């Protein structure tokens, strides 16, 4: 999955004098208050941190309340989805109008029906709705499926993603991985079949696929945690 980065950061944390008895706890508290928020400085959402205090002698700020500042070195796990990135998430709601996905357990994503490629058709199977591929019978998306989708936009206030399933390499992850195992050959034939599909269904091309696209897919596969 893309969008996750580990970042090295140098931070300064200022603590109120009342915290001087339990400093490490206070530092961790301060950092914890940054979690699950988007920061320009990190260019992403902070998910986790690992921190080391650089010096043991803090600098005291002059002023009415003498806050004191610690220099820290931290490893930060940052989530920064950008347009056209591929993300993975679990489908929690599916209707004719939209697919709702949750990414990494905290970020909600929506894929509207207009952003689902024509390969998929909405069907009701009993009580629940599914999106089934017309060309590959086994390729089915329903509630609980882990899917890979591309990012259209990201709202950094509420951490809401608008995604799309227009690209060929998006869809149910389990199906994609199984059927992309015959790597290079399949990739080439996939391009051909993609063209065929487009001609058949007259879908509009969502956008240019980046040139290094196949490499990207392989990389993300390698990074995937089993």
């Amino acid at each position: 999955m893309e969008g996750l980065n580990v970042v090295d950061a140098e931070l300064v944390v200022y603590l109120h004098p009342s915290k001087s008895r339990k400093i490490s706890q206070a530092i961790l508290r301060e950092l914890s208050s940054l979690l699950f928020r988007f920061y320009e400085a990190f260019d992403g959402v902070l998910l986790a941190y690992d921190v080391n205090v650089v010096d043991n002698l803090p600098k005291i700020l002059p002023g009415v309340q003498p806050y004191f500042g610690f220099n820290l070195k931290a490893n930060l796990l940052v989530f920064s989805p950008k347009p056209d990135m591929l993300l993975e998430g679990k489908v929690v709601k599916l209707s004719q109008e939209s697919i709702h996905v949750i990414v990494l357990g905290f970020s909600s994503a929506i894929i509207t029906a207009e952003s689902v490629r024509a390969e998929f058709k909405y069907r009701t199977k009993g009580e629940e709705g599914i999106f089934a591929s017309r060309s590959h019978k086994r390729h089915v998306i329903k509630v609980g499926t882990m899917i890979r989708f591309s990012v259209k936009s990201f709202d950094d206030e509420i951490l809401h993603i608008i995604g799309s399933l227009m690209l060929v390499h998006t869809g149910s992850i389990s199906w994609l991985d199984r059927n992309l195992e015959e790597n290079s050959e399949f990739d080439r034939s996939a391009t051909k079949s993609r063209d065929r599909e487009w001609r058949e269904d007259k879908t509009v091309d969502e956008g240019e696929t980046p040139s290094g696209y196949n490499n990207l897919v392989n990389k993300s596969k390698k990074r995937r945690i089993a």
Partner: protein
Amino acid sequence: MGLELLKYPEMEEDNVLNFTDSEIVSHVKDALTSVLSGDNNSYNQLVGVMHHSKHLAPDEVALLETTLKALAGAVSSIDITHHDSLLSAIFSMSMWNYGPHVADALAELIVSLAISNGKYLDLCLRMLVSNFTPPPYFLDKLKLSRGLERKGQVLSRVHAAFKKIADYVPLAPLRLLTVVLQGMPTIYHKDRAILIYVENMLKLESGEIGELVGSTMLMAVVDRLIELDVEIGWDAILQDDFSKGIFEMELEDVDDIDECSEPDVGEFRLSRKSLAGNSIAELLDNLLVLTFEHLESCEREGRLAKVFETLLQSFQITVLSAYKSKFTQFVIFYACALDPENCGMSFATMLVELFVQDSQPQPTRMSAVSYLASYLSRAKFLSASFICSMLKRLVDWCLEYCETHNGDLNPNAHRVFYSGCQAIMYVLCFRMKAFVNVPRLRLQLLMPLEQVLKHKLNPLKVCLPSVVEEFSQTGKSCFSFHQLSRAFGGLERLDTFFPFDPCLLKRCDSFIRPMFVFWSMVKPTYDDAYDDDEDDGSSDDELVRDHVNENEDMMNGWVGKSFDEQGIDMDEFDCELQKMSITPKTTSGHKFGGRMPSRIRPSTSPESL
């Protein structure tokens, strides 16, 4: 209203609606998208349906329901700028105005909107939170059965909507916290909306997203309770008497006491400000009862231990540091009563820990020990052995303090110590009977205590005279304090506070009463001893007085009544309060004047000048 009924085109030909949902949805979508190209007709009709809310005929209700459902399917076509009139119409709808089907459809629409786009999330949450309270015209109907039914309908849908939104947008509860806290009605709202709002907050705590939002809700409720609590000021009582000199005030009060059975005596300012007429007190009473009931339900569900952790934290942050909180502390008292072994004991332990820690600030330590003293005395559900072990810790601490501090009597320098001594004596006044026959206790508790009290630091001179007096009477068989009964009283007084004195709020009191120790239950009979003291006469203490009443006859008459057992009558309460601790503010730099222990006799102050 003169509004034309919106007709879907086919309806005119056909009386039976037989469209599929998707057809209706696409019709609505067309109406929405046509705005972008400038054609507003169908869109305006849609908005009109939203606004039509009062006195709906059945087919209008059906139309509204259908429209809402269709909109729920068409949320992806709603644009925040182009369709702002529609959105504002939707967000200003109140579920209280409609029946269950429309409410369902509206809730569905709100949930769909909230999860479709981050931009709508806050707005949707705010709309749902605004449905916590009914529209003004409905507030009176809440007491009727019809009103209660509607309330149940609306609130269940609102809370179910929160859960659904949280399922699809995991960070929604975080935003919800902010929205709920911002939307809290202030205590000055005349319409008592705060009551139903707090009910909703507590419902959130026990609801399905309770794990995520519960503790913040609880703490916010306690904060609001304290805000109300401090609005009922003792200051109001003090400031009227302040302008007069000490003796004048006392003379006047002596006169007034004769008339205390009539609450409307002219000079009797207290009755004007008495709690009986105080609407804030009534509101606080109702809120406290809500909280008690919530704690009861937590206990039934087995969650009380977890909830108590939050309560304890909230207590330390808010209640302990509030200056002389009057009633809010009964929340924690009640929680302790519901689960004496876990909650009851951990509360006392927490207070003791605060007291013995040098690193805590002085006011916190003194406040903690006041709470501890009052709690150990008043809690019927605590075992004698536990109380004894708590006292032992206090006594041991005081003894150690004596051994490491060799100074003389100095109320300012040793305030924490003196407050500790007073706490011990206060608890023993209530609980001595339980302890006195156990030989081990004598050794471990009473003997070290005697050492402490006889130390150079002389706590008996600094602690509140009434407490010392009562203690010396109670402990007569154990201690030899005869010589001290003349010398106490002290030029120095301790500012005191007995937080768990009988609760003056009627409804609360009925909850607390069964688990509460009243002085009348434990006071020893010592009328002979009392007569002895009479001969000493009452010398006036020019510096300070903590009791205004020196008239022995009056006292006898008062002692004879056991008002505790009769339940507190507001008039009697006025009487009691007036007699007890009405004193001016600081004189000679010493503050005092909290409430006296309710049935401990006032001091006859035979100290010499």
